[in-house]
């Protein structure tokens, strides 16, 4: 019932409003930049998290060395 081919040139049901050709095109262009920003943010959060874990692991090990066994 829903057309499977979403890449056909007339946009699929059930969009009843006119999305506007110009709006779709500019959206794809902005999306490239905006998507890169999202990806960079996710990537950067992972990098920060990695280093945070690295340093907190080191300090835990140093503390444990000082404790009496």
């Amino acid at each position, binding site marked *: *019932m*829903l057309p499977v081919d*979403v*890449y*056909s*040139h*007339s*946009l*699929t*049901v*059930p*969009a*009843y*409003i*006119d*999305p*506007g*050709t*110009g*709006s*779709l*095109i*500019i*959206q*794809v262009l*902005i*999306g*490239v*930049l*905006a*998507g*890169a*920003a*999202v*990806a960079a943010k996710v990537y950067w959060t992972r990098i920060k998290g990695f280093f945070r874990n690295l340093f907190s692991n080191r300090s835990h090990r140093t503390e444990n060395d000082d404790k009496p066994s």
Partner: protein
Amino acid sequence: MTSRVDSGSFRDPNGFVFWQDGSLYRQVNTSYEDNYEHLMESGLYEVLVTRGLLVPHEEVNIQFPQPQLAHKVIRPELIPFISYPYEWCFSQLKDAALTTLEIQKACLDFGMSLKDCSAYNVQFRKGKPVLIDTLSFERYHEGQPWVAYRQFCQHFLAPLALMSHKDIRLNQLLRVYIDGIPLDLTSSLLPVHTRLTFSLLSHIHLHARSQKRFAEKTVDMKRYKLSRVSFLGIVNSLESAIRKQKWQLGSTGWANYYQDTNYSLDALAHKRQTVAEFIDRIDPSSVWDLGANVGMFSRIASDKGIPTVSFDIDPASVEINYRECVKRKEINILPLVLDLTNPSPGSGWGSEERMSFTERGPVDCVLVLALVHHLAISNNVPFNRMAEFLGSIGRSIVIEFIPKSDSQVQRLLRTREDVFLDYTRQCFESEFEKYFKIESSVGIRDSQRILYLMRRR
């Protein structure tokens, strides 16, 4: 059984809203069956309703008004007072925009997306914006651009940007342009410095240019695909753009009203007490407060648990009123912008898609406090016309008469000729008695003003 389709519900082939025996229903057509069932079964409906983002509904077993198309009929919870984006203050429109984007983000987690982003799909319920169009959801297919992007920019980002960067009154353009403010107009009105911010440069200025460039062209849309990450990027970018739109409240004429009035503390206390007593006597199921300013007297009713709509002509006063409503998490008060001398008319197709102000009444109780002198003197409205109009919207009124000797009236007359020979207490009472029965009148202590409780004949 007679059902009547709502005059504003005809664009979406997936269903429509109708009235039957005084209740509101929505028919869900078979063309929407797959999307509807996915909405309900995937968990998205539960999440949105629990978070107060979507109006709850129940499925009902009544006769389909259009059985050849019907899949199901649902009964959504009724919104007590319908309002429109051109009646909202800045922060109400901003909150409605953020709610729409929050819903869109939640949708993507369940494989769905909003197929439209009309500001008319949002209403205020218990003090917060909520989506009322249960049929707004469609399945998300990666690669497909967001069909609602244009509508979001025109209904939400454009008016907010204009209000923030140009003039707070420009949201009134929403009254004229029923599908949001055109982007080329927005772009031409916005100051040049807005082209220096990525958000407005992309979503307004370049968007407008792109619309113009491709207006008459046919394009092979197969080339233009939007990945899921890019889709999320667009939504996040719009959210950041909306959050950046701010309105600094300067000191406007009306917002500092209560520092500027001639009420002594004793007079104000007596007025509040009398208004409270009159409201108790009327015992209304809802109240409209006209010329409510920041809502001091509206709150006498809403704090009693009575749903109250708090109207004022000044956007700054309504903004302050709404911010207070949000801060205190109030659920019974709805502040709105309204010019009583030119209230919202019916609009849209057949002038019937959006209700006029008067069509949304009458109500049990209307407060008309510290207002008649503005209508009579500043706006030349005779008492007779005032009484007729108030009789058409309120079954009972609590109304304050401000005599000519009052300093506020003197201030209004300072720069103009006093042609208001009929502006007297006797005239006021005799004109109003043609439409109302005066049940009570109380002179406010330490003041020359008089409060009346009147019942419509």
